[in-house]
């Protein structure tokens, strides 16, 4: 079996698709960070080429519609996927069926891709609510979180729209990713010079107000902690100030 190894970026994946199409073969695709290679596999290294990526993006959008391309992108952000062969099969089907391919859930490759996409979208929607910003100074907001999937790029779209008159920083501490917005552009980057994180321990009065509100709006007679945890999983609790305790909250850098 031939396995294509790419660098773990979306651009890398699309570039390796390009070579697979060109050589007319159906290899396995594996990324550098989540590598799974069989003992007898022939591994081919693919170097990411941004020019090829741009060409392929345009081509795929015109041939398989924007909807399918977005599906591939969203599903790619799912952390649990190790082999991208289903993505390749999905795209091949999309050439014939266009966006109706999303209805063909009884085909296993389509089902896997759509399921992966759904998991990412569900988490994104959940985090839209659970994200907590801190006001560091007059025009700067700072949020820190650690999602299961790599959803920072999807979240940004929402917050750019919502908080367009503020600068903000969203920090994914699991992947060490920063999303920086300066009222015009948004950048997602791994390294930041400025250490604004030090100011993170500012506990402002509105946080205390919200804790009061949180406590008083619950109805004691209806207590249902299981339901609460179902809807707000404990893995997120350390960045939600009203439920975090000193034991599970962030230790600030």
């Amino acid at each position: 079996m031939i396995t294509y190894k790419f660098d773990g970026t979306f651009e890398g994946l699309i570039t390796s698709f390009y070579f697979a199409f060109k050589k007319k073969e159906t290899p396995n695709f594996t990324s550098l960070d989540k590598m799974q290679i069989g003992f007898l596999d022939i591994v081919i290294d693919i170097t990411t080429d941004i020019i090829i990526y741009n060409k392929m993006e345009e081509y795929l959008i015109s041939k398989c519609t924007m909807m399918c391309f977005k599906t591939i992108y969203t599903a790619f952000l799912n952390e649990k996927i190790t082999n991208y062969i289903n993505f390749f099969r999905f795209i091949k089907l999309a050439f014939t069926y266009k966006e109706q391919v999303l209805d063909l859930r009884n085909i296993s490759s389509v089902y896997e891709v759509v399921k992966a996409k759904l998991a990412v979208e569900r988490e994104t929607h959940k985090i839209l609510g659970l994200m907590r910003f801190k006001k560091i100074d007059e025009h700067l907001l700072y949020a820190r979180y650690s999602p299961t999937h790599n959803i920072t790029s999807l979240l940004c779209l929402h917050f750019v729209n919502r908080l367009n008159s503020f600068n903000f920083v969203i920090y994914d501490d699991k992947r060490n990713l920063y999303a920086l917005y300066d009222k015009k552009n948004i950048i997602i980057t791994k390294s930041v010079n400025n250490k604004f994180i030090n100011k993170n321990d500012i506990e402002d009065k509105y946080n205390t107000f919200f804790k009061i509100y949180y406590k008083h709006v619950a109805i004691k007679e209806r207590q249902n902690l299981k339901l609460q945890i179902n809807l707000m999983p404990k893995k997120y609790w350390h960045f939600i100030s009203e439920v975090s305790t000193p034991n599970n909250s962030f230790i600030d850098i």
Partner: protein
Amino acid sequence: MNVSEKLEILSDAAKYDVSCASSGVSRNAKPGMLGNSVKAGICHSFTSDGRCISLLKILFSNYCVYDCKFCINRKSNDIRRATFTPKEICELTYNFYLRNYIEGLFLSSGIIISPNHTMELLYKTVYTLRHEYNFNGYIHVKAIPGADSDLIDKVGRIVDRMSINVELPTENSLKLLAPDKSKQSVFTPMKHISNKIIQYNRDKTIYKSTPSFVPAGQSTQLIVGATNDTDLSMLKITEAMYNKFALKRVYFSAYVPINSDPLLPAIINKPPMLREHRLYQADFLLRFYKFKANEILNESNPFFNKYIDPKAQWALNNLNQFPIEVNKASYEMLLRIPGIGVVSAKRIIANRKYSKIFYDDLQKMGVVVKRAKYFVTCDGKYHSNMPFVPEVIETQLILQTNNKINVDQISFFSKNIPMLEGVRI
């Protein structure tokens, strides 16, 4: 009194109001304004009772001139009272929103002096929030029954959703527990708002610059278990409100005994949560599954089954229409199968164009197979390994969802054979 104390008192006073969603309107950000609105609504936190915090749900004031028996803020109750100023509410909302704690504001109030005076204060608050604080998020305001229609119009042009609580389904129970309210005083403004929504929407097709009026529609709330009203009467009035006033949602709130009064039911340990749950299930059947109220319940059977959900109950009562062939049934018929919802029915319809659907595919379509398998055939085959007999299916459905029921083989010598109340087995 400082803000945190007021917040304590007035959020405590507002917590029994359940109609508190942030959904129904999609609005993009505007330059210079803070916020937008997402159609699906967003939940920002979940309290220890498992309900979501979506909006900052507070009362403007808990002073009230009315004396409704079930209400915590009734005139004769001896509780701490407080009133916010419009500015305090705006500050709280704006700063909570900025930190992503909430999706918007839910503002209600006790009646201070008169309905008009109260409505005026609410208007002043939301006006300041929209136009001075440039807040573009979601706002839900309670319309005060008895307030001037002009005032309601003015508020309606600013906010996203308005609601008037019916609380009790019949005129008699209103007379008994809320002597200052009447059916008339609730339904007149409701009718007025729904007419205005229609009018504004029609104008919008001609003049694009027409402002939107209550774009997320109206909602209301009914209290479950404070009076002797049947589930059927609750469901009937719910259906009537959906049909007549085009309400977006009707909420049900299990009665939590706060006040003691000879007219109220005796103190119960737990609010009637299951009844509330069944009403919500039936409510969804009305709104999305094209059911009618009298199909779900009828005069001879005015209460919900304790063990089986309304949809499965309907299917069991109409077992002559089952099993349904998944590959041939219409959308309306698919919706009636227990275990198949709106999304999975649409997926089945979309998929049928390309291939036959087999039993194994059902799970991939999002169908709850453990429930649906008793009611469907796939490609002509009936896949449940139980016989197609009402009693058997009923037992299976009960055992699936009620894991607290002990299932033991009955001993040959046992004298008391356990029976489930209200269910024929």
